[in-house]
């Protein structure tokens, strides 16, 4: 995709483990443009977090990355540590799942915000402080001035996540990566935080990547969705097209397995049998084939490639895709 702010090209992440090599990310291509939101959906262990770490160049020391991560025309995999440090926090920001562990418990909210701002922007203390107060107000924190003197433990989970978002937004990043930003939060707070992220993304014309296990979270709030399974992107499409017509059986099964409010109680859920394959023992064929009800023929001997369907934008990796006009 040309003109994209971020493009990940043929990324592979390998992690050595006592049980052998673990391929966490397996030949992934992704792109996101300015002002757009990409959702990456998958279950635990599918490689979605490792992929985001690869983008941020924050992989574990032992991990090996190949492929390119192009951001604003430069390949992040070739940048020096110093240049990367300047870029992260300034142009590339991240919000993690658990705000309690991403904030420093022994520093006040004010210190953490002001430190980030002064590190990247040329502002004096008074200006940085003023900007911190504005940011806290923008993310919906009441009495922002008083909050500067508080410590993370004095705030609720939702408020802490707002602070983490304020820090992430403090230097006007071009790309914000939100890794399960609402998983640790209650449902009413989750809605507030997702609304906040969407509002700030629009206002700042940022590119945003939302990583989640919840198809419900990406449905109304992303432009494009990539579904990951066992380290690979198995389906990728503009959000409306994906929900209108899922082609990859895993995506369809994942949606079907969600309990829904419009279904009568005690209706058996269409569960996906079995569990994801051991990532240190890669399968020769499609990784989903042992759990797939459409599996047949070469599904177990050959890996399907991610390729376009009827439209160039809708890609899937499946030999027996769900026929157009059938299924969900």
């Amino acid at each position, binding site marked *: 995709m040309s003109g994209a702010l971020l493009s990940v090209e043929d990324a592979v992440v390998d992690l050595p483990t006592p049980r052998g090599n673990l391929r966490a990310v397996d030949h992934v291509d992704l792109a996101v443009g300015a002002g757009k939101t990409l959702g990456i959906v998958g279950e635990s262990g599918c490689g979605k977090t490792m992929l985001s770490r690869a983008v941020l160049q924050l992989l574990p020391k032992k991990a090996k990355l190949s492929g390119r991560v192009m951001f604003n025309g430069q390949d992040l995999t070739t940048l020096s540590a110093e240049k990367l440090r300047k870029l992260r926090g300034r142009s590339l920001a991240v919000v993690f799942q658990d705000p309690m562990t991403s904030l420093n418990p022994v520093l006040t909210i004010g210190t953490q915000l002001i430190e980030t701002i002064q590190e990247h922007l040329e502002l004096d203390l008074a200006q940085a402080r003023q900007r911190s107060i504005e940011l806290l107000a923008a993310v919906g924190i009441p009495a922002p001035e008083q909050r500067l003197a508080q410590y993370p433990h004095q705030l609720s989970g939702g408020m802490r996540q707002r602070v983490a978002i304020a820090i992430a937004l403090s230097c006007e990043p071009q790309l914000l990566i939100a890794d399960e930003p609402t998983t640790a939060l209650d449902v009413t707070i989750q809605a507030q935080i997702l609304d906040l992220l969407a509002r700030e993304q629009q206002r700042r014309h940022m590119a945003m990547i939302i990583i989640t296990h919840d198809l419900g979270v990406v449905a109304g709030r992303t432009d494009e969705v990539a579904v990951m399974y066992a380290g690979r992107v198995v389906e990728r499409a503009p959000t409306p097209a994906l*929900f209108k017509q899922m082609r990859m059986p895993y995506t369809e099964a994942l949606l079907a397995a969600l309990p829904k409010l419009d279904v009568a109680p005690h209706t058996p859920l269409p569960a996906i049998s079995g569990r994801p394959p051991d990532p240190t023992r890669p399968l020769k064929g499609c990784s989903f084939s042992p759990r797939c009800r459409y599996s047949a023929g070469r599904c177990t001997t050959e890996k399907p490639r991610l390729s376009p369907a009827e439209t160039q934008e809708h890609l899937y990796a499946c030999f027996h895709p769900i026929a157009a006009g059938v299924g969900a």
Partner: protein
Amino acid sequence: MLQTASDPLMKVENLVVEYSVGGKTIHAVSDVSLEIARGETLGLVGESGCGKSTLGRAVLQLRQAVSGKVLFDGHDLTTLKGESLRKMRRRVQLIFQDPIASLNPRRRIGDIVAEPLMIAGVKDPEERKRRVDEVLSAVGLDPALVSGRQPHEFSGGQCQRICIARSLVLNPEFVICDEPVSALDVSIRAQILNLLEEMKARYGLTLLFIAHDLAVVKAVSDRVAVMYLGRLCEVGPSEQLFARPAHPYTALLIEAIPVPDPDVRPTQSVPVGEPPSPIAPPSGCRFRTRCPRADARCAGEVPELRVVAPGQFAACHHPLI
């Protein structure tokens, strides 16, 4: 009490549970009354800190109540002690949220599942093995393959199956499930919910199903109770409650669920507030600080649970129906 179940197995009456933390009192459960009929699944929903887990533990007498009664099959558990309480507890079991943490990592699965039988005084090893094998098979595990292995050899979903097997080995009548699937992935969650439904039918169980996820609760519950900051807001038959919520808090919870459909635009009407502290809950209706309908009466007067529709009760001065 208004919620008359025809044949209540479990009856909670005016239960109050408070903790003391740093000299301050946390009002975890305030004057809650509930009935659960034999063979019924009652879902209990609410956000973290609303007191739903405390209520579950107080029912089992793992938390001492300040006042109120817990009547199980006619016996008040709050007055039982020692051996008579232990005997009753065999009939009531608990399944926790984190299946891996609730299994002893050093012990083998066969011993873990047999432990309740040991405690209950089943001395014959043959008899114990027969019971353990039976429940392991029932939850979809092969006893010959799993009995000799340790918890770390299993995934989260399989560990939850083991926990369920352990909870069933004494043939309980009543099982409290406290967030049994919230630590599991979507594809595994559906398997475990289906398994709980199967086990309920097979062993004739009555369930108290505690969760924060409304869709999960609806999938398994006959009736649902909604809790907010230590008090019940609303109780009613699942379908009815979700179709026509009477309490503004229930409506807010339903509205806040992300729907996997891009045509449904996310709502912008969710209020910005957060739940107040249970150390100093608001006077009157505890939801009033976040409620669009609140007025002076809500601050002054605690709303009682009242009938709003057949079988449906809401504690609100200005119900939606």
